[in-house]
C-alpha cells in the first residue's frame, strides 16, 4: 500500500528516529511507551557514549571543530525554536551569545567558578536579557522585530568599548580553560572541549525536545499558526512570546559561553552582526523548527567555509582577488540550498527518505496486482 503523508502534517521528524522505531514502537501507538523525558534521556546517553568514542578517534583539530559545532548547535537550536515554533524572528541572537560569553568570561576571570556553574550562570544571564528585550519587543511583529533585533546585535558589542575597564574593550577577555586534573596531564585539550561542549549540547537538546512536546510547545505552535485564534482560545500571547524569547536567549547564552570556551576568548568583534546572520542562516538552512535541522545548519556553518577555504588553498588561491573565491562559493551554496530544499536540509532529507520508502511499497503493490 502506498502511504501518503497526511496533508496537514508534512512527513514528521519521527521518521528519522530509526533506532527508536527499531526498538519497538514502529507499529502501534497504543503500545505503552516510556515517558518522554526518560526516552529522550536514554537516547541522549546513547549518543553521549557514541560521541565520546568518536572524539577519542578524532584528531585534535577535528575534536576542536566538533566542540565549535556543538556551541553553534545550542545557539541555533534556540533560534529555531523561536522562529519555527513561536513564529517570531530574531536577527540579533548573536547579542545574547555575547551576554553569555561575557558573563562566563567575567566569572571565569574574577571568581574562578567551575565551568559547569559558569555555563549555568551565563545561560541565566542571557535568559534575563532575553526577558528584558522580549518585554520591550512584545508588540513587535515580522520586519519590525527583525529590525529591532538587528540593531541590538549591532549596538550591544559597543558596550564592550564603552565600559572598557569591565569588558576589556577591543581586546576582550581571556577564557582559556584547562583540562581538568582527573583526566590526567596528557589528555588533549580539544578532546576535553569536545566532550564538554557536546555534553552541554546534548543536555540542551533534551531539554528543548521536552519543551517542544510540552504544553508550552503546543501553545507556541497554535500562536504561530494563528495569533488571533490562539488569543481567542484564551492563550496569553504576550507571555508566550516573551517565554520563547527567553528560551532562545538562554540557548544563545549557553552557545556563547561554549564558543568562548572553544575560542579561548570573548571579544566584541566575535559577536558582530555577522554572527547573528550566521545563526539565522543556519536555522533556516537546516530546517526551521527542527532540532535535527539545527545540527545540519550548524554543520554547514562550521564546516563548509573551512572546507571551501582549504580547497582554495590547495589550488594556490590565497593571493589578491582569488582569496574571495571561497566567499563567492559560500554565497552560492546558501542560495542553492534554499532553491533546492525550500524546507531546509532536514526537510529535504525527509523527502528523500519518504521517496525511498514509497518506492519499495509501490513495487510490492504492483507485484500483488499482477
Amino acid at each position, binding site marked *: 500500500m502506498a502511504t501518503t503523508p497526511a496533508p496537514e502534517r508534512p512527513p514528521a521528524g519521527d521518521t528519522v528516529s530509526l533506532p527508536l522505531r527499531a526498538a519497538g514502537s514502529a507499529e502501534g501507538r497504543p503500545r505503552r511507551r516510556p515517558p518522554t523525558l526518560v526516552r529522550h534521556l536514554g537516547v541522549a546517553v546513547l549518543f553521549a557514549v557514541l560521541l565520546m568514542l568518536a572524539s577519542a578517534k578524532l584528531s585534535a583539530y577535528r575534536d576542536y571543530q566538533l566542540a565549535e559545532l556543538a556551541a553553534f548547535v545550542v545557539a541555533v537550536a534556540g533560534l529555531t525554536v523561536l522562529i519555527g515554533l513561536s513564529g517570531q524572528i530574531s536577527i540579533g541572537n548573536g547579542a545574547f551569545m555575547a551576554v553569555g560569553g561575557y558573563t562566563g568570561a567575567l566569572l571565569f576571570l574574577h571568581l574562578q567558578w567551575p565551568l559547569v556553574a559558569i555555563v549555568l550562570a551565563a545561560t541565566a544571564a542571557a535568559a534575563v536579557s532575553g526577558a528584558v528585550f522580549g518585554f520591550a519587543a512584545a508588540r513587535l511583529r515580522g520586519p519590525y522585530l527583525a529590525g529591532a533585533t538587528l540593531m541590538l546585535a*549591532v549596538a550591544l558589542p559597543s558596550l564592550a568599548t564603552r565600559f572598557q575597564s569591565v569588558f576589556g574593550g577591543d581586546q576582550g577577555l581571556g577564557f582559556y580553560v584547562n583540562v581538568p586534573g582527573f583526566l590526567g596531564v596528557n589528555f588533549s585539550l580539544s578532546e576535553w572541549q569536545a566532550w564538554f561542549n557536546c555534553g552541554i549540547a546534548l543536555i540542551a537538546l533534551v531539554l528543548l525536545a521536552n519543551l517542544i512536546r510540552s504544553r508550552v510547545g503546543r501553545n507556541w505552535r497554535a500562536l504561530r499558526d494563528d495569533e488571533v485564534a490562539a488569543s481567542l482560545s484564551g492563550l496569553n500571547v504576550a507571555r508566550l512570546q516573551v517565554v520563547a524569547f527567553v528560551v532562545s536567549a538562554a540557548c544563545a547564552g549557553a552557545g556563547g559561553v561554549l564558543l568562548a570556551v572553544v575560542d579561548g576568548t570573548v571579544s566584541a568583534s566575535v559577536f558582530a552582526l555577522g554572527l547573528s546572520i550566521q545563526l539565522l542562516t543556519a536555522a533556516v538552512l537546516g530546517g526551521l523548527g527542527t532540532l535535527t535541522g539545527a545540527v545540519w545548519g550548524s554543520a554547514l556553518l562550521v564546516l563548509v567555509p573551512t572546507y571551501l577555504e582549504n580547497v582554495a588553498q590547495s589550488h594556490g588561491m590565497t593571493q589578491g582577488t582569488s582569496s574571495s573565491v571561497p566567499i563567492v562559493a559560500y554565497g552560492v551554496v546558501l*542560495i542553492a540550498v534554499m532553491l533546492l530544499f525550500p524546507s531546509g536540509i532536514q526537510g529535504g532529507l525527509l523527502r528523500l527518505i519518504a521517496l525511498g520508502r514509497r518506492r519499495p511499497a509501490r513495487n510490492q503493490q504492483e507485484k500483488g496486482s499482477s
Partner: protein
Amino acid sequence: MVEFLEFTLEGLSAGMIYAAIALSLVLIWRGTRVLNYAQGALAMFTSYIALEVIDRTGSYWLGFVVAIAAGLVIGAVVERTVIRPVANKPPLNAVIVTIGLLIGVEGLAGVLFTSNNRSFPPAFSITGLSIGSVALGITRNDIFTAVAVLAAAGLIAVVFQYTSVGLRLRATAFNARVARLLGVRVGRMLTLGWALAGLLGALAGMLVTPSTFLNPNSMDGIFVLGFTAAVIGGLESPVGAVAGGLILGVVLSYAAGYLGGEVVNLFGLAALMLVLMLRPSGLFSAAPARRV
C-alpha cells in the same frame, strides 16, 4: 550654537543617504514582502560599475547614468532569477536568499576589483560653504545629495499616486491575488518594484561612496542604518522612510558630536526601540491591522 547647527546639518545630510536606502527597502517590502539584505551590496556593486566607467571615460555623469541603469537591470534580474523561485515558500527563505546574495556579491566584487579601498569622486565640490565668515559645515555635494534623494522620493511618490503603472504597483502590493483577477500582470509589477529599488540603491551608492571609499564591504554599515531608518519610519510608507532616515541621521550626529563616537550605535538602538515601543509598526504606519 554654531556647533549645534553644524551637528544638525551634518545629521540631515547623513540622513539623506539612510533615507535613500530605506526608500529602496520600502519599495521591495511593499511589493514582495521581502527584506532585501543584499540591497547595500548591490549598491556597492553598481558603484564599482560606475567607477570603471568614470575611470575609462573621464565622465562622472556618464558613470552616474550607467550606475543607475545597472541598478535598474540588476534589481530586475535578481527578482526574476532568485527571488521569484522562493516567492511562495516560507518568508524566511527569501531572506536567506538575499543573505546568500549579499555574501556572494561582496565576494564577487573582491574577485573582480580586489578588496582594496578605491577613491570615488563626488558629484560636486566637497569644500565647505560659508555665509560670511561662518562655515556652515555643508558642501555643494551635500546639497546635491539632499536634492537628489528628495527628487527621487518625490518622483516615486508621483509615479505611485498619479500614474496607471503606479496604480497597478499599489494594487499588487495591496493584494496580489485580487490584482491578478483585475488583470494586472502581477509578475511584471513585482519585477518593476525590484528594478526601481535597484535604481534607488544605485543612487544611494553613488551619493555615499565618496565618503566611504569603495571596497566590497563599503555599504555594510550604511545598509544597517538604512534598514533601521526604514523600520523607524514604518516599512509601508515612503514618506516614513525619508523621515526615518533624517531622524536617525540627526540623532546619531548629536550622539557622536556631544557624547563621542563609541556610543553612536547604542543611540541608534535607543531611538529605534523608543519609536517601536510607542508605535510598533513605525512612525508612519497606518493603524495596526491584524491580519486574520
